[in-house]
């Protein structure tokens, strides 16, 4: 798989179809790291195997990467969904980013939103069984048990904001956590500050989360904070029929409404 990818990227770079390619590379001790390829020779470092599940879509809006020119990216299913979601939020344009992706062991390349949408529609986007199991387990708990569970998790947080940095949807230049007039989220990494931060983040990602799981994977304190946003995916899909990252022209579920929306808790 790696060879096909390397040859393709070499060709793209020598044809000047792209200026920079974001792909998977060998990291320390078997880890996978993102690598940025600018010349056909450097493309040799690219790899692709079953461990390359990471999405690099969070680099699409990074100024230094954008400054390099036309971007090509090795895209996992999640990276493609992130692209669609970013497009629906007017952050990238059609034909701006060339995505390479595997469709039944065939390496396809496309910058066309319609083609990517068609591919995504053929894929399964459910969250992983062990994640669903954890969500079900939490939902079966009492409110107090859930509170205790999350307080224990929030306590670990050191507020390094790796979750925010790794999230393809957290691209705001001015994050709500940095708003200080008033200070919505305490800057301190005490329990209140940590809880406020994670709830605010989850709420801002509701209806936008493409369940790539990057936030939890990068957390140096191993907080399963992806569950916070994953838990909202099913209700939003059921109640409002919206699923993030499938269409480049989708409307954000919380910026629209239907008069017949249902709820059962308003008197």
């Amino acid at each position: 798989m790696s060879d096909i990818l390397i040859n393709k990227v070499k060709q793209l770079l020598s044809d000047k179809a792209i200026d920079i390619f974001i792909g998977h590379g060998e990291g320390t001790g078997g880890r996978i790291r993102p690598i940025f390829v600018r010349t056909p020779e450097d493309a040799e470092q690219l790899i692709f195997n079953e461990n390359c599940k990471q999405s690099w879509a969070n680099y699409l809006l990074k100024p230094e990467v954008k400054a390099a020119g036309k971007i090509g990216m090795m895209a996992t299913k999640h990276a493609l969904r992130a692209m669609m979601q970013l497009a629906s939020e007017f952050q990238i344009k059609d034909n701006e980013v060339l995505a390479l992706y595997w469709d039944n062991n065939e390496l396809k390349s496309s910058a066309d939103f319609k083609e990517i949408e068609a591919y995504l529609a053929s894929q399964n986007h459910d969250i992983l069984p062990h994640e669903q199991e954890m969500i079900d387990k939490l939902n079966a708990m009492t409110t107090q048990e859930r509170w205790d569970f999350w307080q224990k998790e929030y306590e670990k947080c050191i507020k390094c904001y790796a979750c925010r940095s790794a999230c393809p949807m957290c691209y705001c230049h001015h994050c709500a956590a940095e708003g200080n007039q008033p200070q919505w989220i305490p800057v301190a990494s005490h329990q209140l500050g940590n809880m406020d931060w994670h709830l605010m983040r989850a709420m801002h990602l509701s209806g936008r989360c493409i369940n790539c799981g990057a936030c939890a994977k990068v957390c140096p304190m191993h907080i399963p904070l992806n569950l916070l946003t994953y838990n909202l995916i099913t209700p939003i899909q059921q109640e409002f029929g919206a699923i993030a990252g499938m269409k480049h022209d989708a409307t954000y579920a919380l910026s629209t409404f239907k008069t017949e929306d249902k709820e059962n808790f308003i008197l």
Partner: protein
Amino acid sequence: MENQEFEPKIVAFVCNWCTYAGADLTGTSRIKYGANVKIIRFPCTGRIDFMLLMKAFENGADGIIISGCHPNDCHYSTGNFHARRRWVVFRNLLNFSGIDTERIQFSWVSAAEGFKWADVVNNTIEKVRALGPYENYKKINVPTLFAKEDNNE
């Protein structure tokens, strides 16, 4: 026994055009309701940021009421429809992270529903009184932090 002395603090976030006027009507109609509620007036339920609910709990509220115009009655046409979606999601998130959604009462109260407003407030007060002070939040809120002597770690 302790709860007999406990007077719940309730914060009400209400919209200017319906519920605030409804509460006004409650007063002018001389209908009595609990004095535990502090009303904060907003232009529209659409303006009630979800963070405000958390700020209320942080600052010592034991219960929260959120109320605005009935669907289709919004002064700005659609504010309450947007708010409704937000609450569906936010309530789910709060519930999932173990915050007691029993303490948050959502309602639609029009400018003509003075009686309903008194009912909503009184029922919420009774519900929160039965639940007791919101100890979970009080353990982590700001005054507790100030009192903490050894903040090592």
